[in-house]
């Protein structure tokens, strides 16, 4: 059994082809563990079960129980243990089974992992990753977008990719980074999004946004699942003669201000789309940056399309109402373009 699995997962054969978002993440972990024996995976059900979403399938067979570590149900313990490992030279990848439960380890992350380097010169080169986001009727405990808790925490890096290529390249970059990196995986994308990943070893730089679509009338900033929704809206806008420039932020901390400012100085109008709730979302931070650094380039107000300020509803109709969608982005963008 192990043989067949390894044949399928061993890297090279599967590269340069279309893979799912989930497979790209699995490949990244597999390849990094192959490359560097200091890389270990620790989390609930990551070993024998292969991860709740099968993200780590085959890893235990390949790397053994010393490097693929199943833990009790305690996020705080996972992060605490990983933090200790990182102090002693390992480079752990921690999986949160659902990212909602990362807040159980909030103290460990914000007080120890994030501050160690600053306080006692003890950098914690570790990755904390897990499935996040809504749109899959997961309800209020399995749909969270907790990125902003951590964007607000100095000492961390926060990544939230939208494509298989970025997911793989950024996760590999995160493993190699000497800072603690939070890596959010939007579970809506896991098996819905397929894309080509480059053959061979590659990384995608942390802290760099990318222009997914060029336009001149307004800039749409987004990331993760909403990236795809924004592109869908941009297609509809094009039919109305509105050329939206769509930018995938990819990394939320550090934020790629240069790319954002460059685009807004061109289009002079900015719309931010995020699935995170409205108050305290990244849109507010971007608004502040634009006011500070591009005030005289603004030809309209910053507009936000976000989820509502409530927990994620369980009822499908309510969740649909709660989340941003292409239609909401389309009408907000149209309004802004007309402004």
């Amino acid at each position, binding site marked *: 059994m192990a043989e067949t699995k390894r044949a399928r997962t061993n890297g090279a054969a599967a590269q340069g082809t279309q893979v799912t978002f989930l497979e790209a993440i699995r490949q990244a972990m597999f390849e990094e563990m192959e490359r560097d024996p200091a890389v270990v995976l620790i989390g609930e059900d990551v070993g024998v079960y292969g991860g709740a979403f099968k993200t780590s399938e085959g890893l235990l067979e390949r790397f053994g129980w010393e490097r693929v570590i199943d833990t009790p149900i305690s996020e705080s313990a996972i992060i605490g243990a990983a933090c200790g490992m990182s102090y002693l030279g390992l480079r752990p990848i921690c999986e949160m089974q659902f990212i909602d439960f990362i807040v159980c380890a909030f103290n460990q992350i914000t007080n120890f992992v994030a501050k160690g380097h600053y306080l006692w010169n003890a950098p914690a080169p570790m990755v904390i990753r897990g499935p996040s986001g809504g749109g899959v009727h997961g309800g209020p405990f399995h749909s969270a977008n907790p990125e902003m808790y951590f964007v607000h925490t100095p000492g961390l890096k926060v990544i939230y990719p939208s494509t298989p290529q970025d997911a793989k390249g950024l996760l590999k970059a995160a493993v190699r980074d000497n800072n603690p990196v939070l890596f959010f995986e939007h579970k809506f994308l896991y098996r819905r999004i397929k894309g080509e990943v480059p053959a061979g070893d590659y990384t995608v730089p942390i802290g760099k946004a990318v222009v997914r679509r060029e336009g001149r009338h307004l800039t749409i900033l987004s990331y993760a699942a909403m990236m795809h929704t924004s592109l869908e809206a941009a297609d509809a806008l094009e039919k109305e003669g509105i050329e939206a420039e769509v930018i995938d932020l990819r990394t939320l901390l550090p934020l790629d201000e240069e790319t954002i400012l460059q685009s807004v100085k061109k289009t*002079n109008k900015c719309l931010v789309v995020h699935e995170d709730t409205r108050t305290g979302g990244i849109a507010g931070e971007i608004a502040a940056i634009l006011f500070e650094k591009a*005030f*005289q*380039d*603004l*030809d*309209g107000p910053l507009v936000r399309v976000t989820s509502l300020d409530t927990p994620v509803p369980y009822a499908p109709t309510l969740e649909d109402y709660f989340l941003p969608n292409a239609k909401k982005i389309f009408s907000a963008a149209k309004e802004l373009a*007309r*402004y």
Partner: protein
Amino acid sequence: MAVDIVMPQMGESIFEGTITKWLKKPGDKVERDEPLFEISTDKVDAEIPSPSAGMLKEIKVGEGQTVPIQTVVGVIDAVGSAAPATAPAKVEATAPAKAPVAAAPAPAMTPKPAAPVPASAPVAAAPVSTGERIHSSPLVRRMAKEHGIDLSTVAGTGAGGRISKQDIEARIAAGGAPAATPPAYSVPAGSSRPAPPPASGGLAHVALETAVPREKMYFGSYEVQPLSVMRQRIAEHMVISKHVSPHVYSVDEIDMTKVASLRATSKDEFEKRYETKLTYMPFFVKAAVAGLRAFPTLNASLDGTNVVLHKDINIGIAVALEWGLIVPVVRNADEKNLLGIQRAMNDLAERARSKKLKPEEVQEGTFSITNPGVFGGLFGLPVISQPNVGILGLGAIEKRPVVIDDAIAIRAMCYVTLSYDHRVVDGAIAHQFLRKVKETLENWSEPVL
């Protein structure tokens, strides 16, 4: 009954005008339609007739000041049923004292002798300010500042009438200052002058940049004169034209003997019959028309990657004025005979000199002709009048020895030059065009009378 005198709109793209001269003083009697003051706009200079008979009661906008259209520049006390001869004298006495009241801010402080100069009293400030806030955006305000544009003169098309980026871009594309002059390209602003003495409206124009530090211009004994509005427009236009169009020049020589003798024999009869002088110009216009028909590439404008080939042939003819230069347009020159062209030209030139041209009479030229030869020039290399792609320059017609059939003959010769925009026109076309002009003139066949 008081009648307001307003700054008229001289053409639909004109938004402001400068009063260059008041022809009447407060207290003067005026007839209806009698010239009251002279203005200079981006398109033409003109005399403005009085809207009413009566007495000029007050001048609100002094000479040299630029105001938006429809601004009240003065007031006439119209001859009503009950305003007999006594009234004027009375008002005459009070007028100077009244003027400062109308003036809003500073003048109260300056000691003001009972001087007879109410005309120069500060203008009642705010032009069209209706007190309403102008809605724009930080970007729009910045762009307006950079390009010296008064936002109160920009119409907003954004939500709720807001002035949007598109609105300000359109204005900048139309030449920055609130006048949509034909050359439709944006001119980068930013004349970095240390102590800017712009005449009006804060013209920040590349044409008015200096090539050397300003200090280097002031030495010895000198006098400083402000550039007239017309000269400013000419300066802008010339710089833009040279900037936009790569000029190439071709020269040809034309034997004008046949035309000269034709003109010599018929000009008296022509003048007697048609009461207008016969010059060489209509011959050249006809010849240019023949050339443009044969080579329509020269009767064109360039819009980005499109060439606009004009079906009309409207020839702009440069008219030198004591105070500058203007290029009125002979419309549909191809549909006119020699007499028609001569009449149109004489009429335009006459009205150019008396400042009575209408704005539309200097627009929509498709090609132009200039005549440096009239001042004795052998030939000139003119700058293209935008948005044309060519201009024909005429040298002086003078007798020169030339070789004809291996014999030396004395002929009336004339150099002609063609300046053309090499983006659109190549040398081959240019020389063929000149050849056509030459052939038409040397083999002139159209009867003159």
